[in-house]
């Protein structure tokens, strides 16, 4: 390691930062083990990303079979399955109804159903461009746990009256159509109405189906960490009365359709409706909402292909520690500091060299994996959530940057502790274990996992996030499912803050202490 530090051609100017960088780079590249370790880290990330893979049925039994559901008006993947009691509406019109009850059934741990309501079980009135899945719509509804809502085009969600519907305290819902503009109203007594929202639906044909609906989404509950999620299909039943129609509604009777196939493995009865003495009872299962990944959804994200980063992370933090502690172990630090008495610059040069090498290695590895890994997964029939090109670049560059900053944190901790065993142990505790517990092997309950994903250096891995959390979709939004509590760059900033603090402490100690 040492003999090539001063090369004949290089002037050993004490203040030249370029020379310092070159000296540190020579130190790094001439230790065979570190170079091999960096190459091994790249190979591990690539091998684990492209090697043995998940398999699925997507595209195996026909084009786009078994994949995620239809695409909504906004271009996003949506879930669109519910029981629809409808009749045609031509031109403008209005539908008003009273909801006196919303009951349902949710699955227990044993798989049996018992009475209960999923928080986003829905029943109400809807006007939809067509009965095709993914078509535009606007709906007024009562929900299991979120009061009255107006929802439209899958991602739109506006709050109305709070509380649940019952015979003693019913909820009145009204939806009016004027051209392609739909307005929702709610009322607690049928006399005093409040406007909840007005939306304009693009491409609404003159004649559209409208009427009553009920649906209830996939229900998931965790007990402990994500390793113990259970749940399944749930069902909701809404009871409607005092239905009144105005405008261009056709005079025929109500038709019942189960829109979409209920998702999930244990499809129960798709629902139905009954009409008796002015009361309409509608039962349905499914959801009208954006699709999600994770416990209540399907598919994997491109972050899934980067699982090998865990192996790479361990390697780069160990190399980062050794880059400093081996100087202390061999006494080289005394030579280094004699050559460059300004100690802060030594640390800065080391950090730059280590960070650059790690970033380059991480960039190569993650670029290969993210671009090729998706193809591998798709060939295995796994549905991979589509990402935009900028998001893909952000995941690749972000992952490399996270590895680089993690290595710099390791270097700083090693500078402060000087002994490699203590330093590696600390780095593992600070960086690797939080990542392990929140993402890789999620044994922690969701609360502590969420907290760790916000404050620990593992927050930096939020750069791999490519999914959107929808408050109107019940799901287990955990880092291990690809949902981070912080936005990508906020998470990265948390990691950088750790690095800044570690470097500041290391610089202070390096300056103050005798080597």
């Amino acid at each position, binding site marked *: *390691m040492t003999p090539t530090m001063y090369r004949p051609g290089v002037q050993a100017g004490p203040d030249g930062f370029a020379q310092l960088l070159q000296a540190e780079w020579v130190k790094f590249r001439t*230790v*065979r*083990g*570190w170079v*091999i*370790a960096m190459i091994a880290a790249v190979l591990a990330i690539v091998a*684990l990303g492209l090697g*043995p*893979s*998940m*398999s699925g049925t997507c595209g195996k039994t026909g084009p786009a079979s078994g994949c995620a559901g239809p695409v909504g008006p906004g271009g996003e993947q949506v879930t669109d399955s519910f029981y629809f009691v409808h009749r045609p509406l031509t031109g403008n019109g209005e539908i008003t109804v009273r909801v006196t009850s919303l009951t349902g059934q949710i699955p*227990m*741990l*044993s798989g*049996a159903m018992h009475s209960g309501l999923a928080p986003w079980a829905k029943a109400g009135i809807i006007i939809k461009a067509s009965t095709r899945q993914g078509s535009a719509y606007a709906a007024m509804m009562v929900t299991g746990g979120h009061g009255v809502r107006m929802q439209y085009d899958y991602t739109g969600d506006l709050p109305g009256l709070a509380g649940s519907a019952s015979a003693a305290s019913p909820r009145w819902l009204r939806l009016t159509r004027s051209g392609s503009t739909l307005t929702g109203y709610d009322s607690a007594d049928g006399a005093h109405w409040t406007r909840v929202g007005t939306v304009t639906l693009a491409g609404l044909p003159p004649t559209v189906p409208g009427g009553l609906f009920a649906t209830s989404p996939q229900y998931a*509950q*965790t*007990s*402990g*960490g994500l*390793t*113990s999620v*259970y749940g399944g299909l749930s069902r909701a039943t809404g009871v409607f009365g005092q239905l009144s129609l105005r405008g261009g509604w056709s005079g025929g009777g109500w038709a019942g359709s189960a829109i979409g196939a209920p998702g999930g493995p244990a499809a129960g009865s798709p629902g139905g409706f009954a009409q008796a003495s002015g009361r309409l009872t509608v039962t349905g299962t499914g959801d009208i909402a954006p699709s999600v990944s994770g416990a209540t959804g399907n598919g994997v994200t491109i972050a*899934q292909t980067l*699982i090998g980063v*865990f*192996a790479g992370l*361990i*390697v780069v*933090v*160990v*190399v980062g*520690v*050794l880059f400093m502690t*081996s100087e202390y*172990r*061999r006494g080289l630090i005394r030579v280094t500091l004699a050559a460059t008495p300004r100690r802060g610059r030594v640390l800065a040069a080391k950090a730059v060299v280590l960070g650059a090498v790690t970033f380059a290695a991480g960039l190569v590895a993650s670029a290969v994996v993210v671009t090729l890994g998706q193809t591998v997964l798709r060939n*295995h029939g796994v549905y991979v959530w589509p990402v935009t090109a900028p998001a893909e670049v952000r995941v690749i560059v972000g992952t490399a940057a996270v590895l680089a900053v993690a290595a710099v944190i390791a270097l700083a901790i090693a500078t402060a502790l000087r*002994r*490699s*065993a*203590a*330093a*590696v*142990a600390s780095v*593992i*505790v600070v960086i*690797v*274990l939080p990542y*392990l*517990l929140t993402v*890789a*092997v999620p*044994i*922690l*309950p*969701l*609360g*502590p996992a969420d907290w760790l994903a916000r404050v620990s250096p593992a927050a930096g891995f939020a750069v791999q996030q490519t999914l959107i959390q929808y408050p109107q979709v019940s799901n287990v939004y955990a880092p291990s499912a690809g949902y981070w509590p912080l936005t990508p760059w906020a998470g990265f900033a948390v990691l950088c803050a750790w690095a800044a603090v570690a470097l500041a402490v290391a610089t202070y100690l390096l300056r103050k202490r005798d080597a």
Partner: protein
Amino acid sequence: MKGDGEVGGKGAKRLSDEGRRRVPSAAVGAKQTLHAELIKLRTLPGTVWLLLAVVALTVAVGSVTAAAVTCAASGCGQDPAKAILSGIDLSQAVVAILAVLAISGEYSTGMIRVTLTAMPRRITLLTAKAAVLTGLVLAAGTAGVLASVLAGRLILPPTSPAPFSLANGADLRAAAGSVLYLALIGLLALGTATAVRDSAASIGAVLGLLYLFPVIASAVGPDWSRHLQQIGPMSAGLDIQATTALRSLPLSPWAGLGVLAAWAAAALLAGGLLLRWRDA
């Protein structure tokens, strides 16, 4: 990292080999070696703290996880024994660090040359280290597991089928097996560190070996995942904690612990042979 470990040793190899032969063999008996190793490990500044950390982590993580378990009439959402003993998932890392330091500390300070001069029979030396380490880990592991069981019994909601109790065969197996698991992790780490010698590289290697298998298993398809869980030292070894759904386990509990024992034996064998063949 391998290259880094070799830098100091290469030049001195022949000289030291000759030096080794000049030392009279059997200068110290096995009993004295054991005593010497106990003193060394006991008086290291980090040992006591690491052992306390094993106990504390086992109890703390086990309690947090047990508190998050929900139970219904039909049973709990999670295997209660696994939840109570989940602290082992973390405290094994501390055990690994302790075991690595037991041997690599000697290399980093040069103490290993004195040790091998005093005790030239290297396999006996490694056996003594392994025995002392196992004793300490068993003691700390037993304390941690017993405290976790006590805490778990207080925290875990009373489950209708059967509350966790050491009088129950499966629960006793899970608790005692967890202590054995920690001891085997210690031996695996000791063997690895004897082979690798550098403390940082050894800790990285052992933790990578432990945690990488479950990480990969979570990312691959069910067939691969099952095989990885059968051969990974951590995932196979922790099968010993399962008390429910035994049929769906990749391996039976004792077979799983056997896999970990095989890993530990292989690591000790590799470490022992390298220790015998190599110059210190």
